[in-house]
């Protein structure tokens, strides 16, 4: 990925609080339906998997298809239960993985 994805997660939260997470990855999400100037099909290359884990356990995930817009934006909630490093990963069609991790302290 050209630029690191952006993740908006609060640095602190109260135990049991529902916090909204916003993620924005930088990717063309080439559908495979488009053609270039010479009329040749442009091969598909999309981010197909997204996941948010804490200590190896998946909290939230998404399987994306070509109908997801370029620069995939995903929002979801997590229940603040444990402090730790939340790991966000994006996997593309070629298996290339981009990871961002961010700490949240739960009190």
């Amino acid at each position, binding site marked *: 990925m050209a630029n690191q994805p952006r993740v908006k997660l609060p640095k602190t939260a109260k135990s049991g609080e529902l916090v909204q997470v916003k993620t924005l990855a930088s990717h063309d999400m080439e559908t495979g339906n488009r053609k270039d100037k010479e009329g040749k099909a442009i091969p598909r290359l999309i981010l197909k998997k997204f996941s948010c884990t*804490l200590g190896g356990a998946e909290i939230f995930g*998404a*399987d994306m298809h070509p109908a997801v*817009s370029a620069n995939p934006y995903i929002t979801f*909630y997590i229940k603040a239960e444990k402090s730790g490093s939340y790991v966000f990963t994006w996997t593309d069609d070629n298996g290339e993985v981009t990871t961002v991790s961010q700490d949240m302290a739960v009190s």
Partner: protein
Amino acid sequence: MSKSTHQMVQMDRRQALKVAGAGVLAMGFATAAHATPEDAAMAISKLGGSAKADSAKITIDLPEIAENGATVPVNVTVDSPMTAADHVKHIHVFAEGNPSPEVISFNLTPSTGKADVGTRMRLGKTQNVVVAAVMSDGSVHVNKKEVKVTIGGCGG
């Protein structure tokens, strides 16, 4: 000598694969240039369970008119306590009039806390967006909403 024949064989195999691949692509295009409501319904029936249509549990937040089909914001909330015993496992989003109906599938867990997800999607034309929620007890709830698209967003 034997090496060069080996290379020849490899070349032939590669070319054969290419031709076969092109054939499959062409067939795909001819038969499924656009998905139909039936395709979306098929995809939903594969989720198992008896789908409850027009479920009040699902709220779909979509613009009535999307000027740019390349990025249409969508937000889905499902009424659920999100406990270990009773939670939403998957939220699937389908677009009935796109080249293929699948848009995105969200996988939720009790730690998600609230079944409220959002993204931005591409819509090729004016169509229904169908959302299916799979609950932890296996039941499937379905709801849909129409979006009018001014400029399609699937590229030409």
